[in-house]
Structure formats: C-alpha cells, structure tokens
C-alpha cells in the first residue's frame, strides 16, 4: 500500500530522516515508535507530503513520486498522492467555524465534489461509527478532547482514503479519554483499514499492530511483529528504549 525507498528529509543542515525503507501492506497496521526527536512524526508527515522529502521515493496506492535535487514536485502530483491518505492529528485540528457534520462533509463536498445529501448520509454513518451521531450539529469547542479526536478520525475517513495516518492521536488527551479514541482505532483496524500510527501507547501497539517499527536518530533501528519487538528485541538500544517506557524513573 505504501512503499518508501531510501527516503531522506533534512531541515536546512539538520538531517532528520537518513534513508528510510519501509513497506506497508494493505489492511495492515504499522505502529512507529521511538524516542522523541527520532523523526517518527516527520516520517509520517512525509507520507502525505505535509513535509516534502529531500530524497528518495514514495509510493502510496498506485501513485509514485521520487524526490531529489532538480526534481521540484508538481502541485498536481502532490495533490494526487495526498488524496490517497487521510490524517489524524495530535491536536485534532478540527475546523472551529464549522459544525461536526460540516467538518466531516468538507472533504467529500469541496474536494471530491460529492452531492450534499450523499456526503451528509456518509458523514452521519461515520459519526455513528465513532459514537457521536448526536453531536452532528455541535461545534468542535463544545466537545471533549476525546470526542474531537473521534470527529477527526471520521473527517479523515470521509474522503475514503486508502490509508489512514495517525500522528500521536492520543498524546494531547487526558488519560481517561485515551481509551475511547484507541477503541475506535482498534475497530477500524479490525475492519481491515490500512493504518500507520505514531504513538507512545505500547499496549495499543502490542495488541493492534501487525508490524512495529522502532525509529532512532532518523534510521530504522529494528522492525518486526509486536512479539519480536517487545519480547525478543535484538538491539541493545531497543531494550533500553523499552525499559525506559516501562519504568520511566
């Protein structure tokens, strides 16, 4: 579904991603973990070109792009690639001037030119799925963080993406609200949605992920099944990263 080859990203002189190769298969869940500053969010944002990679190649669905010197990406290509995916943000980023329903319908109506009624029916269906049908007419500010993030998921789903990208979707939430968001994500995973998730929720990772990637200093340190990573880590640094998570002090 997503194929990443020798992907590099630099901000000025600062090399954040140093040659990443990854394959994400259809209907699988990949969880990216790693210490802060390891480049995991940058990697995720490269997948829908919110960050433009400096080098390498990226394929999402059937759309391929290569990056490098003298290769200025065309707007048209950026849009084509971006429209294959949906994204859920750490800080939700709902549109505050639109109702919940309007937030979800915005992509289908404005970008995909769907009919109003059709988009509304689909939006209500998605809201039902995330358990917020009764909030259709509310404004984002009237919702709790967990509710806002569930709307964020519905909005990302509404454009029928081939893959959903999650950027630390529960990091801004109060602990008691994390569960409702992870619950929705788990359900999506069970339905066969292809997902790439950057998170610190190790329990979620171990239960839902098909593949875990540990990023460190802009490189893939280790990848494998949850069992490989959590129970039989090969690298010393993986062990020390995991032990810090379990016993932070």
């Amino acid at each position, binding site marked *: 579904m997503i194929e990443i080859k020798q992907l590099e990203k630099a901000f000025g002189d600062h090399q954040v991603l140093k040659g990443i190769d990854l394959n994400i298969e259809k209907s699988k869940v990949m969880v990216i973990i790693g210490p802060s500053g390891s480049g995991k969010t940058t990697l995720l944002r490269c997948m829908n070109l919110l960050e433009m990679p400096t080098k390498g190649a990226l394929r999402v669905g059937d759309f391929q792009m290569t990056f490098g010197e003298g290769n200025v990406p065309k707007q048209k290509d950026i849009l084509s690639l971006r429209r294959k995916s949906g994204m859920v*943000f750490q800080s939700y980023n709902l549109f505050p001037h639109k109702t919940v329903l309007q937030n979800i319908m915005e992509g289908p109506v404005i970008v995909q030119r769907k009919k109003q009624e059709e988009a509304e029916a689909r939006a209500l269906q998605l809201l039902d799925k995330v358990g917020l049908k009764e909030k259709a007419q509310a404004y984002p500010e009237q919702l709790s963080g967990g509710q806002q993030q569930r709307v964020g998921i519905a909005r990302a789903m509404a454009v029928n993406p081939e893959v959903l990208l999650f950027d630390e979707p529960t990091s801004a939430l109060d602990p008691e609200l994390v569960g409702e968001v992870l619950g929705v994500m788990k359900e999506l995973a069970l339905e066969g949605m292809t997902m790439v998730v950057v998170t610190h929720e190790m329990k979620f990772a171990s239960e839902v992920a098909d593949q875990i990637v540990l990023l460190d200093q802009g490189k893939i340190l280790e990848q494998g099944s949850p069992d490989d990573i959590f129970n039989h880590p090969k690298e010393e640094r993986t062990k020390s990263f995991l032990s810090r998570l379990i016993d932070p002090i």
Partner: protein
Amino acid sequence: MDDRSARLYHIFVESFLPLLKAGVEFTIPLTLVSFFFGLLLAFLTALVRLSPVTPLKLIARFYVWIFRGTPLIVQLFIIFFGLPSIGLTLSPFLAASIGFSLSVGAYGSEIIRAAIISIPQGQWEAAYSIGMTKNQALRRIIIPQALKVSVPPLSNSFISLIKDTSLAASITVTEMFQKAQQITARYYEPMLLYCEVAVIYLIFSTVLSSLQNRLERHFDLHSSNKGSRL
C-alpha cells in the same frame, strides 16, 4: 433666556439640519463607498503579499509603504490639486473617495494579513490532509476564521474613516465639517458650531459602530468560539 443664549440656541437649531444634511449627503456616502472599495483593495493586497509571486508582492509592499508613510491630507491634495497638472481632473467627491479607499486599503491589508497569519498552521495542514488545494484551504478554512479575527480592528478603521472624511473639506467637498466652517463664517460662533458638528460625528460613529457588535455576534453564531469570556 437672555439675548446671548437665545441667539446661540437659535443658531444651534438653525444649523442642525443643514449639518445633518451635509453628513447624510456627503460624510456617510463618502465613508461607505471608501470603506467598501478600501476593503476590496485591502483583501487583494493582503492575498498578494501572502502569495509566492515576487513582483506582485513588491508592488503591494510599495503601495502599503507609500500610503501608510504619508499624511492622508497630502495624498488628497496630490489627487485633487496635483493630478490635473498631468491632465487628470477629478471631481472633489471622486478624488476624496479614491484617496480614502487607498488609505483604507493600505491599513486594512495589514490587518487582514495579520489575521490570516494568526490562523494556526494546523488548520492549513488539516485542509491539505483532506486533499484541498491552497485556494480551497484559503477560501473555505482560513479566510472565514481570519475575517472573524479582523472584525474588531477593521471596525476601528471604519470609525477612523468616518472622522477622517472631514479632511475632504480641504479639497472642497461640502461634507459636514466644511458645512460647519461655512456656517461659522456667517455667524462667527466657532465654539458652538464646532461642538455641534462634533456631536453629530459622535452620533454617526455610535450608530455605525453598533454595526460592529452585530457583525461580531453574526460571526459568533457561526462558530464555536463564543467571545467575551475571561
């Protein structure tokens, strides 16, 4: 009532309607026309300044630099008294409208530009993530939020403009202040007449600024962010 008071009272009443008439005929139309075109210009200039097209950006910056950096009355004099010498003669009202529009445009563009910049980056990213183009993001997501932010400062410009139109007196527009000067010349009661015209300006700006409250409430109804809470 002694003679003096009676005379003042008489002049006050006598001049009220002519002053009001000058206000309704010139001050208010001049304000509304200039604000309308000024806002259009402000919008255009703000968008150009935020666009990636360098030559246009330079022109926009140059325009803002000139019109913010020179006195309004000098601009009016150039347009009305200066342009005829290069063959462009404008009516006083038209010259004043053009001058005020250009001034509102220059100041307003900075307000709108700041409002657009103040919308969090995450809003752009969310718009892009659902596949929007830059124009769609601007039109659907960024500008509606920026407009709301810019209502209070733009209202300030509007109220300033009502009062600034008195400068049109200096290029022979018979707006309200010009009228007050004429009546003063006849009766020689400057204290009375200038206070009287001040009162009428106050009434105008009070009425017109109630539009601001309406507008703010309008925007509040269309967004979750209900203002006025501390």
